[in-house]
Structures are given as C-alpha cells and as structure tokens.
C-alpha cells in the first residue's frame, strides 16, 4: 500500500498536465509540418531578386 494515497485532485492535475503537454507537442509537430511544406514549395526561400527574374545590380559581376 502506498504511504500517501492519491487524492482526486492529483489525478485531475495529472490529466490537465498531460493534456497541456500533448497539446504543446501537437503544436510543435504542426509548426514543423507547416515549415516542411512551405520550404518544399519554395516561395519563401527565394530572394526577391530571384523571384523578379534576377537582373544583377549595377557594379556587380554576374
């Protein structure tokens, strides 16, 4: 027998902490998945010059 029997409030707190933990874990996975899709689609990684058709600026070598 455990020396300190579990009070109902401990189970409720555990449930709440587990819920918050799982929610945060899911949020991390969502941000990661979204990042992978955005990076794979390409748009955000291209510099503005590359998107516009890439004319080199004056004084720079191509």
């Amino acid at each position, binding site marked *: 027998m455990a020396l300190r029997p579990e009070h109902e409030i401990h189970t409720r707190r555990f449930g*709440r902490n*587990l819920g918050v933990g799982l929610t945060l874990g899911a949020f991390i996975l*969502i941000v990661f*998945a979204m990042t*992978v899709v955005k990076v794979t689609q390409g748009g955000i990684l291209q510099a503005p010059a590359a998107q516009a058709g890439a004319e080199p600026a004056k004084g720079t070598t191509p």
Partner: protein
Amino acid sequence: MTDIRAFEGPQEAGFGDYVQLLKPRVMSLVVFTALVGILVAPVSVHPVLAFVSILFIALGGGASGALNMWWDADIDAVMRRTKNRPVPSGRVQSGEALGIGMGLSGLSVLMLGLASNWLAAGLLAFTIFFYVVIYSMWLKRSTPQNIVIGGAAGAFPPMIGWACATGAVSVESLLMFALIFMWTPPHFWALALFMKDDYSNAGVPMLTVTHGRRSTRKHILVYTILLAPVALAAGFTSIGGPIYMAMAAVLNAMFLRGAWRIWKRDEAMAEADNYAVEKSVFRFSLYYLFLLFGAFLAEAALRPYGFGGW
C-alpha cells in the same frame, strides 16, 4: 473535534473544462463550413496547409467562445441551458477564461496568417472582434435584433476558408456568408420559442421577450422567406450545380412549410403539444444547413468526373 479539515479553495479545472470553454459543439459547425469554403474554392491548397488553416480557424472560433463565456458568466449562471458552463459553475476562473481567450485569439490569427494568407487571418481577427465586442459586449444585452447581427460572426468561417484558398473575397464566398447569416435568425428564434423562461430570467432582450411570441413567429416566417432566394442564388454561381439546386429547392420548400406552420399556431396550440412543431423546425434547420453545405461539397467532389457544377 478534529484537526482534520478539508481545504475548500477554488476548484481546480481539469483539461476537459478548458476544452468546454472553447464551445466544441459550435467549433464543429465552424470546422465543417470552413472546410467546405476551402474545398469548393477553385484553387487547390496543400492538404497540410488546409488542415492547419481549418484547425486555427476552429481555434479562433473557440477562443471567441472562451471570451464570450468570460463576459457572459453573470447571465450564463441564471439560464438553465448554460449554468453548468465552466465559468459560472466555478470550475474555471474568470481570469483564466479571459487569458485563454486572448492568448488563443492571437495565436490562431498569427498561425492562420502564416499557414495561408493575411486576408484570411484578418477576416478571422475581425470575426473574433465581431463576436466578442459587437455581439457579446454590445448587442446581446441591448437589442432584440442581437441574433440577426450576431449571426454574422457564425457566417464568416466559409468566407475565411475561401480566402485561405484564393486569397480573395468573391461572390461565392459572400453568398455562403449570406446563407448562414439569413439562416441564423429563424434557427435561434425557433429555439427561443420553446426555451421559454431562460432568456427573460437572464434579462437578455430576445425577440420573444421584447416583442412577444406572436411577433417572433412572424419574424421566423419573414426571415425564412428571405433565406430562400439567397440559398437559390448560391446555386447559380461556380460552386452550385444541379445537385445543389435540387437540394436547395426541396430543403427551402420544407423550411418554408415549417415556418408557415409556426406562424399559423398560437401559444395555446404550441403548449398543447409541448412545442412539437417549433422543436421539429429547430432540428430541421440544423439538417438544412448541413445538407446545403454538403451539396456544395458534392458538386466540388464530382466536378473532376464531369458531374458536378453547371
């Protein structure tokens, strides 16, 4: 006498209480209509981004629900239907509801902007503002037209879904908005007719309380008549088609018949059968919206096979 005493502090909320704070039943309607908005749009969205967009539209809806519960805790405590909500029952503290509502509102708008575009995020932010400030704080307690204008908040999700896919607002998304906007008053007034004492006890100026039940019955009929052309007009746009039009014709005829029956009755007749007609029209109105949006979805799903659309 004993030294053992129970500590009677404020109750601690379980995780389920926080979920209840987000009004999951309302969220399910938001998810469905926003999903239809995103799927019927002519631009295809990456499934992951569509999922994330729907998730954060739903979370934004939930956040506005939490803020509504924070603001309305005093009247929720009086009404039978709402007295067991987390804040009036004491399971969640008022400040917690405010914090969660504000935090999730910001997070959902930011994440929707990152997942789709800032027009959709702006529309979501406006929806939360509209529901919390315009409806909950201002109109709900001051005018019997609260349901009419407040219904706009529930009408935004398909428009946000459409904006996620296309980055724009168009006649199709405006008609989906108008469909829910016009559907809300007869739906809620049918509920108000048989949830008799609740709103008057809470001092909320529902039409049944301020203008009487005869006038409410007339309003249900008038709004159902105005709803029909909006529902049919949506069928002539790019999201409509023969399946939708057939569905809209049948469902509007049935809704009109129900509204007509409500209008023909008086209180004595309604009390005699325990508001059977009012209850059946309220239930039917839920199927009405679900089936019409389902028909939009069917048109979009069948289009690649040469069946859906005009």
